[in-house]
């Protein structure tokens, strides 16, 4: 049964010799959503996506795309999916248009018109051999090749790496239109900022384990901020310790530092405002830190 999920994995596990790249992954991507697949380098993101594409054979467990087994029915799966590899390689002597032509023939659908439109939006010249393109433009071409068949599912491995800010914005617009048409997107990244404008849900992978899946809005609320303030007078630690959500609190007579999730910021700042402030700093923490703070324990304690 296809159900509501376009991607579903059960106990998906991949070993490379002694290295366990992915353990017991249960992941679902719903139809019509953008799923941000996050994790530091080496977490197993690329491994997961290549398992979905049937490029890797699972050590155990299985992955399904649109109800089809990713390994055994790989050809049918690929008919439904547009894939951007994590380190896309192209044919150096072929132009963008020749890539479009060749891969379109392999797929059996003419992607030329769509490719031309995507290339224009990303400001990419399809007439030049790929070896003459800059790294950013090669990335754009690989992206166009994944997009051009307007597939039911886009599987994009770190798609915005190497793209200039303008192209990144255009890419985000394209992703949103895709889901607007009821199609789905699974994209990986090692930084939250790359997916936070487009993802509906986010999954976080660490050392081959999925440690959290959440709606982006929830994740945002939890996103940790570092706060540091210096005051004209000595302050009482207890006044800050009473604010819900505050952690790592340190108070040394005239100064205070702590971490707090986005939802607690207002309360912290109001507390700070009751004193005479000489200096104030507030910065969003790295994604990794947020996850370590909130999800690691849950994952460890999970049955």
């Amino acid at each position: 049964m296809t159900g509501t999920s376009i991607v579903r994995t059960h106990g998906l596990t991949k070993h490379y010799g002694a290295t366990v790249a992915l353990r017991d992954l249960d992941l679902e991507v719903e139809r019509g959503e953008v799923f941000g697949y996050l994790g530091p380098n080496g977490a197993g993101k690329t491994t997961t996506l290549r398992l979905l594409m049937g490029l890797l054979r699972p050590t155990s467990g299985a992955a399904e795309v649109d109800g089809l087994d990713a390994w055994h029915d790989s050809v049918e799966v690929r008919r439904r999916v547009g894939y951007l590899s994590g380190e896309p390689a192209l044919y150096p002597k072929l132009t963008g248009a020749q890539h479009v032509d060749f891969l379109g023939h392999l797929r059996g659908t003419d992607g030329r018109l769509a490719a031309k439109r995507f290339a224009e939006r990303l400001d990419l010249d399809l007439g030049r051999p790929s070896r003459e393109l800059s790294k950013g433009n090669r990335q754009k071409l690989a992206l166009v090749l994944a997009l051009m068949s307007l597939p039911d599912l886009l599987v994009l491995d770190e798609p915005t790496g190497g793209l200039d800010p303008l192209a990144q914005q255009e890419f985000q617009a394209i992703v949103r239109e895709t889901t607007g048409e009821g199609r789905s997107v699974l994209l990986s990244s090692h930084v939250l900022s790359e997916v936070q404008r487009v993802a509906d849900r986010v999954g976080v992978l660490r050392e081959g384990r999925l440690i959290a899946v959440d709606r982006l809005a929830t994740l945002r609320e939890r996103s940790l901020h570092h706060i540091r303030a210096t005051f004209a007078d000595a302050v009482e630690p207890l006044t800050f310790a009473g604010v819900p959500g505050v952690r790592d609190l340190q108070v040394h007579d005239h100064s205070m530092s702590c971490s707090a999730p986005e939802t607690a910021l207002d309360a912290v700042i109001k507390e700070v405002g009751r004193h005479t402030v000489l200096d104030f700093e507030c910065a969003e923490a790295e994604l990794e830190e947020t996850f370590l703070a909130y999800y690691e324990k849950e994952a460890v304690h999970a049955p």
Partner: protein
Amino acid sequence: MLRSVFAKTAYDQRRSLLGWVAAIVLLVLMYAGIWPSIRDQPSMSDFLNTMPEAFRSLFASSGADMSTPVGYIQIEFMSFIGPTLVIVYAVAQGSRAVAGEEDRRTMDLLLAEPVSRSRLLLEKATAMVAGTVVLTATLGLALVVEGQLFDMVIPVDRIGAAMLHLALLGLVFGAIALAIGAVTGDVGLSRAVPAGIAVVGYLVNGLGPMVSWLEPLQRYSPFFQYIGHDPLRTGVSGPAAAVAAATVLVLVALAVVGFRRRDVHG
């Protein structure tokens, strides 16, 4: 032009194949050009007869006579240079087919499309066969046409037979390269193994008649299937051609099975 994996592979080869064709035409021209002076110098054959038997056996085939066009081409061309050229070409194609595509990481691009691994491999194998046929057909044509210019006349059907066996010889080694590349994804290995087997097979075939413990092995050498029956003199050998063709088919089948089972290198 780029309608299939086969067409793309052929398209990629077009320049290098043109280079190979030009080289072959020139090489044959050179051999044909010096034929008249070899023919008029009977001492060449005498010289050959004074060489150690092992040496003659390695570089000349049984009873070849340098004073006839057939003997001359047999010794000078078909016993070493010709097979080397065709084997080098076929091994390069076989190695490039799967392992080479992975080495340049473009396999992910191909296998992102709904094309089965078997189909991809078979189209690549077909391109290797087509290229090898073009190469040996050119060689045969050059021998006929350029031979005429210098009175180096060999019956066309015999040249055709020798070219058929030469193409099969190249394809055996090309298929070894293809299979090793398909099973391991390792470009280096997919070139080194057929090269090693070619050297051993060449020596076994050449020295077999003289070294008693090698003799029973001689008929397993691909070079024996190629030249053991002396195709320039006796024409096509059905059994020898069948053995070579079956070897190629088995290797391609192994390549398909091996490639379907494993992880693609990214």
